């Protein structure tokens, strides 16, 4: 089934948000706010009020990475230190807890950061091809509202864009 992508470029957030608000209020039957992707040069501080809370799984990656860092860090050190058994210890612990706490703490942070980065790359769908409708103007000073639609809704969406003083409309069809 063919899917249509339509993107309107607006000169400011107000017009773009007005457009999305109308979509949220079901101005076009069959089109919901979940179909909307907003493209902008900056993140608007009130974007969640318009698009709704879409959440981010990145903190879960962070938590996993930090816990992994603690466990792996300590076991890594302890396993290295375990080879010291052949050395005379002079009464000192083979696995010294105080110094291992310092090093485990560093591992916590290192793996926390790395895992957060991996979480970001996955959650934000980075390292993928740019969408055919991507416009360089979005990285300059314009705000894009992109919708994934059925063919029957395309004209209605275009009219909605025009109503809100859209600067440019781009469209793309995918199989």
């Amino acid at each position, binding site marked *: 089934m063919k899917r249509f992508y339509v993107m309107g470029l607006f000169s400011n957030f107000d017009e773009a948000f007005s457009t999305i608000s109308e979509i949220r209020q079901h101005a076009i039957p069959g089109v919901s706010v979940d179909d909307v992707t907003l493209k902008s040069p900056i993140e608007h501080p009130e974007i969640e009020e318009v698009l709704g809370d879409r959440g981010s799984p990145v903190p879960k990656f962070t938590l996993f990475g930090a816990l992994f860092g603690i466990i792996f860090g300590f076991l890594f050190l302890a396993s*290295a230190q375990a080879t010291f058994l052949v050395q005379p210890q002079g009464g000192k612990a083979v696995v010294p807890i105080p110094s291992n706490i310092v090093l485990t703490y560093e591992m916590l942070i290192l793996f926390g950061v790395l895992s957060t980065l991996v979480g*970001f790359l996955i959650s934000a769908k980075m390292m993928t*091809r740019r969408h055919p409708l991507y416009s360089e103007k*979005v990285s*300059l000073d314009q705000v894009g509202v992109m919708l994934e639609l059925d063919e029957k809704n395309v004209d209605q969406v275009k009219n909605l864009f025009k109503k809100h003083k859209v600067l440019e409309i781009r469209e793309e069809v995918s199989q």
Partner: protein
Amino acid sequence: MQTKDINENIEWAKINADVLRSMENPRIGYWIAVVCCVLMVSCAVAAEVYQYQTGMGVANLNWPHMWDLYIASFVFWIGMSHSGTLLSAILHIIQADWRKPIYRFAEAMTTFSLMTAGLFPILHLGRVWNLYWVLPYVSDRGVWPNFRSPLIWDAFAITTYLTSSALFLFVGMIPDLAICRDNARGWRQKLYTVLSLGWQGDDRQWRNFRKIYLLMACFLIPLAVSVHSIVSADFAMSIMPGWHVTTFPPYFVAGALYSGCAAIISLFIILRYFFRFDDYMTLPILEKVCKLTFAIAMVWTYLVLMEFAATWYGPDMVEKEALIGRFTGAYAPLFWLMLFCAIVVPFTLASQKLRRHLPTMFVVSLILNLGMFLERYMIVAPTLALSYQPFAFDVMWGSMVEWAIVFGSFGWFGLLFLIFVKVFPSVSMYEVKEMVFHRRNYHSDELATQLHRRADDPQPIQQPGTEGA
């Protein structure tokens, strides 16, 4: 006279154009700076080759002075690295938006300072081919790193800090790299296409971007504190007089912030002048950095005086003799110069008039960093010269080889920084846009007056519309 952190009427397209322009067509001054840095690095390379072939004796390193300028330089560069990422992270979390035009080069400074600092332990090893011995891999080859040694902690901490800081810098640049990608041609476009990781500026990416940036900032604050605490443990974990001090970790952290802030002032003024970033690196922002530096300088001064007082009124006679030796011994001129540069000179930052005078602030920032370099040297050398046993008393001055390598380290840092500012945007375009957007939309005139203007500043109505342009 600039009275606002940023001109909120500035066009977003102009922000892109100004920053991208700074990355094009280096002027003659840039190439002269590059040549100077290359020559400095060449000095260091020649000195290191000589030291490598001849032995560590050419650096005058011998018992009891097993550490000297190398470790002092190591601590200095680690300290320089602190302000960039740490202040950027703190100011990000508390939403101090005046950080936005200046944090990028400060974070780059962090990364390059760490890359410079990391060279010194390697050079100091003598047997550089055994560097991997510090890594705690499980080995049956008889390589047993001493995990109780702060030097091993250094290896962990600095590796973690360098990795995290570099990632923090890189992640913060992704939206800007996409702007560069959209405007570049040739090899630059290919480079930015790869580095921007397919950034499109959609709401999913922004949402997750905000999360990762905040989370990384939260990690980096305790990490930065821990790194310099661990560096201080290189000294404090020993029993040498003048080093075995409880306040060393906060003292080192404050010192690191202090020298880092001073370096930010220097680089701020250089970038503002050479790249004509007057619209972004404004005088009110410089004033804020200067005030912050002054506050940190006072914290550091307090900790220094407390250390003196604790030693003076304490029971340890050897510690007391070492302290008196600093004030009156062979290193006394350098010690007094350090006190002047790092305790007296910062009071110029308290003057409103001087804070707005760029040449003065540039000189002051260099003097502050000279003071902080001497401070690191004064931690190391006098203690080694006046240890517990009189037969170990020995004054040592750095050799030409040592000084050449230290000199070259500044060239190395400068070279990395010069390459950075021409390949990557040194001002965060998207964050400056955010700053302008916020100021334009959310700040009332009354609040703006309260935040940005002083009683004796011109009133808003007298400001031209293109202020700062």
